């Protein structure tokens, strides 16, 4: 088994944007206004960001901020990048909206977002990522589940990078953490090896 490392993380939770342990933005604004501020201040680009559902917006923005930061450190994504995301309520936030639309006219564009893995597609399309996509539903962020699944994803040697995350939203409660994992080069040392304690720090 190759040794793996975490190369950085970004979190959007309770009005805060936290990158690698440092709070870069704090706001009392409700979710929509907070996200708007995040998108503007951190130059999150998407040709149709307003059309994404709230879950995909949250995960996409958080991931783009992380990816842009890592690009500045010369860590670049390749086609062989896999994605592993989880949350607790799947796409319930959008399911309830789509269900309301059925009463008048069922919305095809909302229906597509009633699958939680659509947020993975948004990240893949923007960045040209063609690796594995996996979306799991769990009670809460579980470091052991991440560890086992990330190790599985790297076992086949085709994955070079894995972007993993937790993305949850329901009403005004939201919680998103995204982190990037790659292999530690032979002979090199990592300041953040992938293990339960490093995962705990990001996910708690």
């Amino acid at each position, binding site marked *: 088994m190759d040794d793996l490392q975490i190369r950085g993380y970004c979190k959007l939770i309770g009005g805060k944007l936290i990158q690698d342990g440092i709070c870069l933005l704090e706001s009392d604004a409700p979710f929509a206004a907070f996200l708007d501020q995040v998108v503007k201040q951190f130059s999150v680009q998407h040709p149709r960001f307003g059309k994404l559902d709230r879950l995909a917006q949250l995960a996409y923005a958080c991931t783009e901020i992380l990816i842009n930061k890592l690009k500045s450190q010369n860590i670049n994504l390749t086609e062989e990048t896999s994605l592993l995301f989880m949350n607790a309520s799947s796409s319930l936030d959008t399911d309830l909206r789509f269900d309301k639309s059925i009463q008048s006219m069922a919305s095809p564009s909302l229906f597509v977002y*009633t699958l939680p893995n659509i947020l993975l597609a948004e990240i893949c399309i923007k960045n040209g990522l063609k690796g594995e996509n996996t979306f799991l539903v769990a009670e809460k962020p579980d470091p052991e589940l991440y560890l086992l699944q990330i190790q599985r994803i790297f076992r086949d040697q085709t994955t070079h990078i894995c972007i993993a995350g937790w993305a949850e939203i329901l009403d005004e409660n939201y919680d998103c953490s995204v982190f990037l994992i790659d292999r530690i080069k032979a002979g090199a040392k990592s300041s953040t090896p992938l293990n339960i304690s490093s995962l705990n720090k990001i996910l708690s």
Partner: protein
Amino acid sequence: MGVGRMSGIYIIADSILSPLGINTDENFVRILKGESGLKSISRSNFDFDVYASYFETGALEGILDDPFFATLTRFEKLLYYPIRNVLEDSQIDPRSSRTLFVIATTKGNIELLEEGIRDQKSLSLYNSACKISSHFQNPNKPIVVSNACISGISAQIIACGLIDSGRFDTVIVVGADTVNAFVLEGFNALKALSPGHCKPFDRDRDGINLGEAGAAMVISNQSQTNKGFKVTSIIGGAITNDANHISGPSRTGLEMSMAIDQTLKQAGIVSSDIDFISAHGTGTVFNDEMESKALNNSKLDKSHIHSLKAYFGHTLGCAGLLESIIAVNCLQNEVFIGSRGYSNPGTSFELNISSEHIRKPFKNCIKTMAGFGGCNAAIGFSKS
């Protein structure tokens, strides 16, 4: 982007619960006779006519007289019954710490919305999974996969990875989804529903039929089974993304082809070793076109190819499991099930699709799936 080179992973029991039957054998015999679960859906609250494979009112509730079963939702009943079958057949101990449940579904209990139930707990996929795994006194947290239409293959790949890593000896993989107003309205809004029986890969194909079912398999590092069940090996499996469109498939099929090629590589075999393909074959213009390109690109267009959608409908998160179980039974029974609804070629690359059953010895097959979000999956099986 699945599991590494794989060996020593076996399917030691399987079961399907669908409107066509309550176990794998019943389902297999019915489709061998050419029967389909598709029927007109007569619900007064739809202003459109569709065909789907669904349980008549009360039919699902009546299959088991058991107090726990009676407390479950329709979705949970579809999970529970096939698990009960595979546990009985395999005699494995679900209480072991070396045994895990992996559950695949897209929408779980979503039909509870029709009864006005909207709370997070009742609709939680994880909550349903725990209800089932704790009933069987399994000490581990279940893993719930919700990866659109590839969920049933994703769950098998996850199971293989966890066994391969040595973390678990046995994984009970189960998938289910129901036919309900939510998904019917959604696919209707996308104009994806066929007005009749679907016609996968046919020139005149005009959309999908939905179906409801539950399916379970026991995946193990041990090949011994009870009752003379014929064991099948899982030889590889991979998932890719198109990075193209959130709801439309790849224009080239290259990404599904990548998943197939990775599966072959893990299995240490080549395309000419594959006897047949159980394709996704939804019956939509775009999916079947994409798959014809993918299968051609992976040099599998001359293998026997079928879609099972005109027998069971598209069972969403269950489909990858249900159709894998049928594929495995085709291998073991040396009969390839004909592709129902197919008459005339109608994809840019002509595929070797047979609407007739074909009887001959088979060794290896591949099951493919694709889903919203541009995801593709392939998994390979071999007669042990």
